């Protein structure tokens, strides 16, 4: 095809019918639809990112975040939203543009003219695979680090082969039973209660079990959840950071009155907690 005389060098330059990358890129971005899609994508991206805060806002309607873990996981929601926003935005803007931008045809007969026969585009394919892999990789790494952090906070201090940490922690035995929760405080002379009362800023460690079917112990505003299984003890932990009364619900269908299997957690000051323990007949701790 080339009508150009090759330069007179020893090794003749390969004739090419592709434009130089910079030219092609420039030309590409001068196409009207590319520009419009990009503008649309930027707007949608802003919207998606804003949605992250909406999500967290709804999570916070009843007083969350009330613990270290809840803060952490809300942050994850935001980060994940921001990280995936560009790809979501591109996807949505292309489908919107396909609906509104490129030409249409309607009617009962198949359209007379076909669209351009684009079979593939190596640059797009490679860029897309790279972008999605990067995104997935980031999510995995972030998630793993975060999981390691919250589980070391939650589980680290009592596993048998670890030194107890210096922070004073409270053990609580949680028992699920169709359809009530009960709590026992082994460190406080085994006092029991059907609402959970705990001091603020003190790590809690739960040993949870069930006497009948599977329940799921969920302290909503503190962002902890653990299945409560018959014949096994499961553990989790959290540090409440906010005073107040929060919800405990059962999050696993457990029969007839599953919907009513809820109670409260009161996060109080250390002094109030000690007073409560005394009232219940336990001795003052620490």
């Amino acid at each position, binding site marked *: 095809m080339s009508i150009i005389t090759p330069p007179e060098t020893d090794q003749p330059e390969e004739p090419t019918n592709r434009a130089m990358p910079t030219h092609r890129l420039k030309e590409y971005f001068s196409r009207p639809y590319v520009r419009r899609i990009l503008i649309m994508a930027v707007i949608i991206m802003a919207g998606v990112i804003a949605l992250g805060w909406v999500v967290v806002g709804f999570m916070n309607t009843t007083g969350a975040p009330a613990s270290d*873990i809840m803060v952490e996981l809300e942050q994850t929601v935001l980060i*994940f939203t921001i990280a995936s926003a560009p790809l979501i935005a591109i996807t949505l803007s292309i489908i919107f543009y396909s609906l509104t931008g490129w030409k249409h045809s309607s009617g009962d007969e198949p359209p007379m003219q076909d669209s351009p026969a684009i079979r593939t585009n190596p640059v797009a394919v490679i860029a897309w695979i790279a972008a999605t892999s990067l995104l997935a990789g980031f999510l*995995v790494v972030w998630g793993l680090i975060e*999981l390691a952090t919250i589980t070391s906070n939650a589980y680290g201090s009592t596993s048998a082969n670890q030194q107890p940490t210096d922070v004073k922690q409270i053990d609580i035995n949680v028992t699920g039973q169709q359809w009530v929760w009960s709590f026992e405080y082994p460190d406080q002379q085994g006092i029991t209660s059907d609402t959970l009362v705990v001091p603020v800023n003190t790590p809690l460690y739960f040993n949870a079990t069930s006497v009948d079917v599977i329940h799921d112990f969920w302290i909503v505003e503190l962002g902890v959840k653990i299945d409560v299984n018959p014949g096994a003890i499961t553990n989790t932990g959290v540090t409440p950071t906010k005073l107040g009364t929060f919800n405990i619900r059962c999050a696993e269908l457990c029969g007839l009155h599953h919907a009513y299997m809820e109670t409260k957690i009161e996060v109080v000051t250390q002094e109030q907690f000690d007073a409560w323990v005394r009232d219940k007949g336990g001795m003052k701790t620490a």
Partner: protein
Amino acid sequence: MSVMTTQVFEQPAVIQPKQHGKPGGFLRHTSIFTGLAGGIVLAAITYMIGSKLVPWGTQNADFSQVGLNALIAATMFAWVIGFMAGIGAFAGPIRWALGHDLTHDDAEYMAGKDQGKFRYWKYTTDHKVVGTQYFVMVLVLLGVGGFLAMLIRTELGWTWGELFDPDFYNSIIGTHGIVMVVSLIIVVTGPLGNFIMPIMVGARDMAFPRLNALSFWLLFAAVPPLLATLFMGGIRDGWSVYQPLATQAGMGMVGYQVLIIVFAFSTGVASVNLITTAVTMRARGMNWSRVPIFVIGIIASSVMGLIWFPMYQYSQAFAMSDLVVNSSFYNPVAGGSVWLYENLFWLLAHPEVYVIVVPATAGILELMTVFLRKPLFSYKLAIAGFAGVVGISAIVWVHHMYMTGFAPQVGYPFMLSTELISIPFGFLVLVALGTMWRGKVWTRLPMMCVYAVIWDKVIGGITGVYLSDVPVDQYMHGSMFVVAHFHFMLMGAGLFGAMACISYWFPKMCGRMLNERIGSIGFWVAFFGFQLTFFSMFIAGLQGMPRRVLQFDNAFNVSNWVSTIGAYIIGIGMLIFLYAIITSWRGKTWAPANPWGAKTLEWQTSTPVPLENFPVLPVVTSDPYGYGVPDPYDAIEQELAKDDNELKVPQ
């Protein structure tokens, strides 16, 4: 796809067994009615004999009646066996065993030759009949599931008190769940996989026509035990029927277990059949780079079903054994493990969601090419995407069990695999976007559904990414957020995708065009209601509403009201869509053979499709995506290239 119809291939003569009597023999007398009679009689006999034999009074650890459970299970299996015998399912093997194997004429009789409409009520082997039977069955099942969904939403919208007894409420959520899961598993592969796929690959029928009839009628036989449970205490444990709660439910659970055990046989048989057909019966010239992508989707889905359905079947077989012979697979009091159940269940139940979504996705990719008049973008990437989904889907099931209380380290690998699966899913997104890129859309109903489906998938995908993170799931697991997530995937992508496919293939399958206007109204009303219902359900979940509850904190009232209103809107939309299907199907004018101007083989044969699909078997000479005109921008590139080359010239 270019088709040459001039060549005829010699087929070697096969030695035929001798014909005894009229073609069909015994099968001339069987139909669904003899099936019902056989089922009822055998069930009644079993019940009567069984009630004399069972050890009444024996209780299992949860005090349910072991004897009664055993009796119910035996009766239900007897119904299934009696029904299958009555409809003539065993005629083939029995005649083979007696040395009177079916002849060619018998086989033609079984395929429904010259039997008019009554062939739809018989054990007919023609894949087009089976596909139509599946289609009607799916519509009925979706109707039942949808009705139960309305009851659920009515209860949840009625925030002032309990409308239903909690036991009844629990059993309708369980029944709704499993009915919908079953119908979505078959909604694409049943009607379209059976009816369209063999024609699409240029075959005369499925590879194993009799197994095809078997798979449908097994499913048919499995449904009455399921619905009977509503009158026997119900499935009160959600569709996932976690143990040991399920053991407490007793009798009601037996129906669920029978359903799953039989349904697993049905899907196993169907999967083998679909895979074999697609792999071995393709037309001449249809090599693996020319197979329509819908066929690839059917294969992918069938492979997952074939491999993983047995897990579900075992899980329910063990559960049944706990109920009827007092074993203790899942009873921790007697040394069983509830985690064994959860693992077996999710080993299927995760891949199963892809069994649902993959064929619908492949279907919409197929029809995008037709309505955009463009080739599929990067066919190879699409194949890689499906292959990746099939592969990784096997190793992510534990993301449903993040909160079961295993050592936290167990979560790491499954979080990794779950997040990696979005890469092959991403391939499919790019294929869709690339196919849309600069295409002129022909805005017909099937194509408009495609836009809706992609939107739903995006929402389902983002929320899935939140859920796949263990710490975030610590908040969201077991809440309404999860329910909204999977409805976006299963209903938003699976069911709406199936609606796209059905309205696209309707002219071939039912012989008439689907009424565009009524169908579109129905679809868009349902879509709008769907967004309302499930977006507000996301909100309820984020505010902390657990799933499967019938009463809740006042904080969730508003979102539940909106959800319920949305659900009624979906109901209205779906009824309109159903009306469009029924009235169009009864229409008088036949659709043209190829109303969409598509290039795949099923559109090249006449409508209605003749008994063996093609008068002469087609030969394929190119892939089915030869749409398109030269790209005008290529000319610009050429111009630029000229400039460049001039620049490169010295001086």
